[in-house]
């Protein structure tokens, strides 16, 4: 009996975590994307976690990001830029910082074509399994719900058969 209770509690925890995972990954919304491809707004938003990146792959024009103004600003000579930044009270960046930020911006918008021999930012050697963990939980949630539904249906069928006998 205690084993059944423990199993029940674990299953409930998995289902609750899976429900959270569904909303975190925007699972349902992204599953039905294909059925509303005409709604361009939906495909432009989204991605993993809030304000995620995947949807941004569709944005290819810098003006979509308000990037044109920033690009012009960054093309100014250092002295002028530093003076303007000082006037605005902002932090003065050196060239390497600017360069790294520009690379990050490129990565953010998925505009990695043309950065040498077709290589892209996604080829990194990084392992970040947070999202994979959430996908696993959602997967486990579907499995647990199916197992319990199956058990329920079998129970109903058995009771029905008993009544008929």
């Amino acid at each position, binding site marked *: 009996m205690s084993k059944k209770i423990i199993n029940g509690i674990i299953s409930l925890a998995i289902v609750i975590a899976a429900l959270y995972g569904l909303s975190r990954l925007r699972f349902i919304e992204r599953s039905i994307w*294909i059925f509303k491809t005409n709604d361009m707004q939906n495909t432009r938003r989204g991605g993993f976690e809030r304000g995620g990146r*995947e949807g941004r792959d569709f944005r290819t024009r810098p003006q979509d990001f308000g990037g044109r103004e920033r690009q012009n600003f960054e093309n100014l000579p250092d002295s002028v830029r530093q003076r303007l930044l000082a006037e605005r009270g902002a932090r003065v960046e050196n060239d390497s910082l600017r360069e790294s930020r520009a690379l990050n911006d490129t990565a953010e918008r998925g505009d990695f074509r043309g950065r040498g021999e077709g290589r892209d930012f996604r080829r990194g050697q*990084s392992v970040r399994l947070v999202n994979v963990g959430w996908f696993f939980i*959602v997967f486990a949630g579907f499995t647990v719900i199916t197992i319990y539904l199956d058990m329920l249906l079998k129970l109903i069928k058995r009771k029905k058969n008993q009544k008929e006998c």
Partner: protein
Amino acid sequence: MNRIKLILNILLLIVMLLLMDPRSFYGLEFHEWAGLIIGLFFILHKALNWSWIKIVTVCFFKSSPNRARLNYVLDVLLLAGMVLMILSGIAIARTINFSWMNLGGSGMFWRVMHTSSSFITLALFGIHLGLHWKWVQLRFKFKKVAS
């Protein structure tokens, strides 16, 4: 044979989960190659269960039990999901050159297709595992069976 099936299924699950987020595990290159390889694994999975597929296909409208029919329909949906996933993956591939395949369609269409089909297929995989949970229990010997 059952051990091989179990190992193959565990591998399929792990690779499928790693493929769900292209940024999670060694970038897009791994994502695309593993995506192609998982297709082969999937075909192998079907080949290992070919006798069941053959029997249910022949008897689907006659004498198959309802559960077998449900599993069969789910398997067909899974197959469709895998085909769409791989096809759309080929259409939007960036590290492997599939331009010679000339699949047509807009990049956005294929990308949306890829995301949606992979999410739906993952959910179907979960349901598939749930329906085969007894088999998993037997393989791991969670459950003692008389016969």
